[in-house]
């Protein structure tokens, strides 16, 4: 796959300059050099003592982790352990979930993400998201991708190019270039998911959160998305949730392993068990539960 030149990101540098003016790290997957300590890199997110409750019931608690810039951080763990729940704290999507409550502190480039003067719409423009289930709008393919740029007041003249570029990056353009005016609901599940990726890219965010982006895709499309992730890594920070252990091992730089356990009080609560360099976590996990999960003994 040929690399597509990244869009002009200069308009973002005004506010997150330190992050984006640094030369991007070489995405060299084959020869993985030991990752720098997260503390030495730019930290995009820092979670401390994060707890999420749904209608008063704790779903996950005591999450402490740092997400470094221009890396791929993977969340793995058994179903229902709270991966999606943690991911949704990062773009404040719990704000619109009835009964959900987030506690603890989360900072984004050092700023309190849940601070009183934070504009939630701005948060979500900087931090894009691709959902577990493809959710294209019942509009045309073109309008789905154009939705974000239009909200952000991009000029009519620019939108056509932005849409094409985003569709190209999401490896969808060739398949849909002749039917941009047709409804997005006519696409296959995998195409819809790539459309949702394109839709998120078109906003030109700083971070992209992906909740099992490949669960509806065939191996070829999955490989394309993984290639795409490596390309995006040069300019974006990615956090992905995946059930596919090979994918986490292959594609990510750091991995967080979550699991849900019944505690003394009989509550089933999710916890972050281990967070480390992907290589370290998969070859020498420090926790027996991690080892059990990655070797397939449970979960």
């Amino acid at each position, binding site marked *: 796959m040929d690399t597509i030149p990244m869009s002009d990101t200069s308009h973002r540098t005004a506010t997150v300059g330190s992050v984006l003016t640094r030369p991007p790290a070489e995405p060299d997957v084959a020869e993985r050099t030991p990752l720098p300590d997260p503390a030495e890199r730019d930290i995009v997110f820092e979670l401390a003592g994060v707890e999420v409750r749904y209608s008063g019931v704790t779903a996950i608690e005591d999450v402490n982790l740092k997400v470094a810039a221009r890396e791929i951080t993977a969340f793995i763990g058994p179903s229902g352990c709270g991966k999606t729940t943690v991911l949704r704290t990062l773009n404040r999507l719990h704000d619109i979930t009835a009964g959900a409550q987030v506690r603890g502190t989360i900072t984004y480039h050092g700023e309190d993400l849940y601070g009183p003067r934070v504009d939630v719409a701005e948060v979500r423009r900087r931090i894009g998201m691709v959902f577990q289930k493809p959710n294209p*709008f019942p509009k045309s393919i073109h*309008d789905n991708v154009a939705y974000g740029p239009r909200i952000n007041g991009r000029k009519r003249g620019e939108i056509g190019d932005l849409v094409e570029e985003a569709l190209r990056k999401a490896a969808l353009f060739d398949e849909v270039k002749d039917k941009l005016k047709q409804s997005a609901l006519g696409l296959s599940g995998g195409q819809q998911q790539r459309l949702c990726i394109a839709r998120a890219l078109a906003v030109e965010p700083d971070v992209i959160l992906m909740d099992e982006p490949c669960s509806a895709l065939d191996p070829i499309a999955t490989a394309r998305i993984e290639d795409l992730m490596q390309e995006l890594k040069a300019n974006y920070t990615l956090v992905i949730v995946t059930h596919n252990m090979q994918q986490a091992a292959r594609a990510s730089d750091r991995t967080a392993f979550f699991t849900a356990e019944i505690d003394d009080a009989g509550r089933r609560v999710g916890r972050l068990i281990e967070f480390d360099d992907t290589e370290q976590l998969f070859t020498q996990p420090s926790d027996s539960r991690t080892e059990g999960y990655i070797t397939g003994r449970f979960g």
Partner: protein
Amino acid sequence: MSVVTAPAGGALLRSRPGAKGRKARNHAATALIVVAVLVALIPLVAVIGFVISRGGSVFGWQFLTQDIPVLDRDIGGGMLPAIVGTLIITGGAAAMAVPLGVLGAIYLNEYGQRRRLARVIRFLSEVMTGVPSIVMGLFIYVVWVLHFKNETAFAGSLALACLMLPIVIRTSEEILRLVPHELREGSYALGSRKVRTIRTVVLPHAAPGIVSGVLLAVARAAGETAPLLFTIGFVTSTNTSLFHGPTTALSYQIFHNATSPFVGAQDRAYGAALTLILLVFLFTALARLVTTIYTRRTSASSGA
């Protein structure tokens, strides 16, 4: 995979024992459903057939374009004043009740949710749906007609709007509730704000359902007689004004003429009934067309 062993006689694909009973039950159930549908159709076909056979004799271009005879015993004449009246009264009612009702539903589902105010509104509209239409007419008679000392099309519109409002609110809210939450989340996740999300994602998705709901309310209102009895007055020539002077309506004319002892009047009642049915049918077809065009436009080309 299990190994398929051929039963004696080489009949792999024949029914298994017991299947006969199931098949018979299936046939019986299907027959029952067909019969039920036919029985349900009887009153519908009978009503329409009866109205066409009785009203068809007077119905025609003259009937649609002439004034109502001043004397009930006269034969012939038309229903133009009543048609115009029904259109104006129902149109006025829809112009008031539909925007208010849809906005109310948007408040209830998108903003109010389980807040106290929303619960109160929801409860009141539920109660209002059950209020007999004649009570609405009485209400407008007391607070409007008696107050301003005149009967107008607008007074009738007010009474019909009271009737339509709760129906529009409740059906629209149900439809809005059916819009998948993932779509809203998708919009918010792109940095869209609430009003924009409602306008560009929620409403286009809900539009066909809302239009059908609104249509039901309009059709129901167009056929109402009781709220008009003491609000619009009576005329035999066309009054095109919404605010000035009394008017008349098809439903009112059906009531008035059918209760008359004269054959000419009774024929006009059936003619008016046929006209009303055709009018409601026309509304429905028109709204369906509008919905189709609207959804095709928002789901295909331009949108946000």
